[in-house]
């Protein structure tokens, strides 16, 4: 017996190697990256999530690439471009030494074929609308036209691509840094399936060919994905990392422990219950950066009680946003007084949502509810999560105290919540929106009539007209004026009540260099270095 204990102790000591993966990474130039959940896949035309985006940033590249410091897009697969005077025709000149990871040249035809692929209805891509700004793209996707040569994308020669848009669409370049517009290698896709095959095997290690700074090396499901440096990448000289190890860690507590044990350089999130007001001073590894996302409540305007704008305003004006961020979320979130987060590519909305209980009560009275008791019981729908429950509890209390109305909380499993929102089976529901690209349009566009993400049944054609007008306006200053008008209209009609602007809270090891905070939280791995001071 005595010996078995001794054996266990010796074994445990033997296991302790002394150095952690993070220590070993300094020499090996390897980045250990906490990447949220297991990615759905690596086909840029099929996948839809943030973890997938991180991987695709390393593996593939679009015409433009996201700026590591945020703001204007940088050249990517295209070295430069011209824009016609009317803002509708873009001519892209591809990198002369742009290669696929198997050595083939990246050509303009590759882009034409790839865009045809994502717009092919039978592929069932969930992001074809990113290209709807291209002439006839929507028509091709809906089946109104069958001939792809009518769509506004043409290869003028092997390295020149011409794109014709419906409207000037000033944010088009930013949109091109989204992976749904990126190219795929035609011979590889066709070797392992058909053009519209969702289950093609081309994204497996060994088969995978793409044009980014890294190659897919191994992929162990639910364990890790390893990518290594692609020597054929056109800008390979500036890539300093040899490998990136992406770990799919869905549990934030596990991720936090892995970081503390030196197994990760960067985490995807940070447990909110560990957030304190001065957390950054206590632990300098914790980063809190503004993020292009808004946490808000949707009002179902088709609901009898909520179809009156005065009621919606009364509800929105009786939420103390400052208190919510200080006492409930407590992780550096910013109270939101507009739908579009301030600072989205230089757009700062001037809308205001006062916290004014008297005004709110008067509005409710005007709407015919002398006292809150007459108001029907209001339900707040949210998906099961401790964070959402806390915010909902705070708002329930504010509405009950300030307006005297009865509020019930309904939490549902994620898919049930989505389905109830989609069919309009809710009164008030919790929501969040993260920008796909750096422009106010990515927010405001969702509130146009007939947009799947509107969900509030608020169909305002004046708002729709303003956005259409903004998209057709080339002058940025003029365009922002129109968008500001749209934002004001939205906040005046209040189909949604913004609550706070998101922040990205995560942990970053001090060895990681070339990592800059930016509002989309896109950190292009080609600029990242591992150096110990």
């Amino acid at each position: 017996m005595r010996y078995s204990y001794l054996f266990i102790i010796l074994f445990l000591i033997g296991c302790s190697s002394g150095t952690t993966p993070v220590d070993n990474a300094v020499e090996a130039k390897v980045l250990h990256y906490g990447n949220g959940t297991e990615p759905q896949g690596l086909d840029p035309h099929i996948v839809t999530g943030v973890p997938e985006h991180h991987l695709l940033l390393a593996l593939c590249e679009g015409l433009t690439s996201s700026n590591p410091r945020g703001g204007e897009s940088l050249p990517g697969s295209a070295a430069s471009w011209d824009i016609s005077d009317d803002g509708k025709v873009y001519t892209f000149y591809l990198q002369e030494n742009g290669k696929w990871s198997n050595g083939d040249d990246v050509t303009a035809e590759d882009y034409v074929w790839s865009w045809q692929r994502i717009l092919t209805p039978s592929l069932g891509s969930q992001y074809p609308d990113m290209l709807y700004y291209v002439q006839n793209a929507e028509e091709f996707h809906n089946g109104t036209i069958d001939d792809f040569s009518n769509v506004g994308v043409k290869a003028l020669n092997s390295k020149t691509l011409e794109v014709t848009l419906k409207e000037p669409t000033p944010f088009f370049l930013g949109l091109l840094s989204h992976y749904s517009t990126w190219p795929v290698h035609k011979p590889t896709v066709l070797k392992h399936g058909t053009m519209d095959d969702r289950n093609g095997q081309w994204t497996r290690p060994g088969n995978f060919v793409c044009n980014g700074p890294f190659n897919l090396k191994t992929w162990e499901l639910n364990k890790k994905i390893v990518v290594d440096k692609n020597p054929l990448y056109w800008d390979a000289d500036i890539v300093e990392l040899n490998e990136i190890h992406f770990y799919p860690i869905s549990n934030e507590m596990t991720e936090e422990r892995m970081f503390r044990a030196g197994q990760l350089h960067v985490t995807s999130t940070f447990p909110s219950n560990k957030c304190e007001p001065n957390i950054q001073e206590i632990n300098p590894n914790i980063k809190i950066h503004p993020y292009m996302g808004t946490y808000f409540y949707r009002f179902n305007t088709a609901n009898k009680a909520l179809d009156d704008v005065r009621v919606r305003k009364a509800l929105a004006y009786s939420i103390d946003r400052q208190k919510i961020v200080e006492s409930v979320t407590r992780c550096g979130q910013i109270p939101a007084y507009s739908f579009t987060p301030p600072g989205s590519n230089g757009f700062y909305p001037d809308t205001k949502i006062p916290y004014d209980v008297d005004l709110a009560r008067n509005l409710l009275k005007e709407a015919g509810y002398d006292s809150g008791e007459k108001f029907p019981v209001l339900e707040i729908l949210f998906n099961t999560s401790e964070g959402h429950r806390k915010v909902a509890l705070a708002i329930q209390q504010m509405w009950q105290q300030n307006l005297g109305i009865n509020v019930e909380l309904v939490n549902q499993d994620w898919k049930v919540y989505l389905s109830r929102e989609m069919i309009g089976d809710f009164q008030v529901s919790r929501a969040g929106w993260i920008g796909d690209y750096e422009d106010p349009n990515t927010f405001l566009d969702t509130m146009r009539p007939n947009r799947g993400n509107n969900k509030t049944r608020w169909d305002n054609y004046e708002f729709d007209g303003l956005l259409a007008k903004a998209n057709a306006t080339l002058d940025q200053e003029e365009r922002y004026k129109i968008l500001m008008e749209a934002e004001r209209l939205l906040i005046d009609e209040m189909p949604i009540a913004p609550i706070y602007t998101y922040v990205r809270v995560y942990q970053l090891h001090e060895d990681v260099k070339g990592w800059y905070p930016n509002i989309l939280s896109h950190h292009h791995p080609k600029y990242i270095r591992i150096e110990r001071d």
Partner: protein
Amino acid sequence: MLGIFLRRILLAIPVLIAVASITFFLVRLAPGGPFDADKAVSEQVLKNLNEAYNLNAPLSEQYFDYMSGILVGDFGPSFRFPGRSVTELIMTGLPVTFELAIYSMLIALFIGILSGVTAALKRNTFLDYIPMSIAMIGICVPTFLLGPLLVLIFGINLELLPVSGWGQLPGDKILPSLTLGFAYAAYIARLSRGGMLEILNQDFIRTARAKGLSEKMVVIKHAMQGGLIPVVSFLGPAVAGLLAGSFVVETIFQIPGLGRFYVEAAFNRDYTMILGTTIFFSFMIVFFNLLSDIVALWLNPRSRDT
């Protein structure tokens, strides 16, 4: 005995068919579908997706398609992971979950039997009270508490063992196996103590002692064979439970096992994956129950002779 064996196998077939059929219709009744996402997809896209996975066909047709697929071992493609079949996903997670289950079970048996038998032999002494109190705590403390606690002590404070992973860093299999094994060790300790106490009072033990056999021989050769039958009966469902219930430990320790696929499939409404894993786990439960019944029958001299 062969008759019992065949009868049990024949009974398992309708059980599995019933499980598959009920699960098939239950998952379809659950609100929300596999393609509902935060970024709403247009009707056109949803139609294309449903067509791509044959979800537009009448439910009865889908049911018969699916059932005939299972007969030839085809569990269909996963909806959540395009390009991967359910069989492939199960086969990826299974070896890991199986390995974890084996280590945990070995730990559980070693600690459980050792402390259970000692407690029975030293009844009403400290060697009985202490292991049994620890066993009671083991039954009560959930793995989601024990796991992080062990990580905190051995991984973060003492820096002896990695806090997560499976086969990536030396020693990363120890903490998850201990966490999962400890709860089962507690059950086994109590079962073996009970079984041993019952046997130790029997006449044949007294005979063995009267023959002049050493206490060691009496315990190992005579008492344990009968005294551990309750443990053997418990092992079948326990192994099945270890396979199907390792989700929590897999999540805490970031282990790429089957349990995570199983639970995440349910959240994602990955219909084929839910069905595939449910059928697979049902099969495992039926199989291990059968196995432990056979071993218990064989160990029990009264039923072995008939």
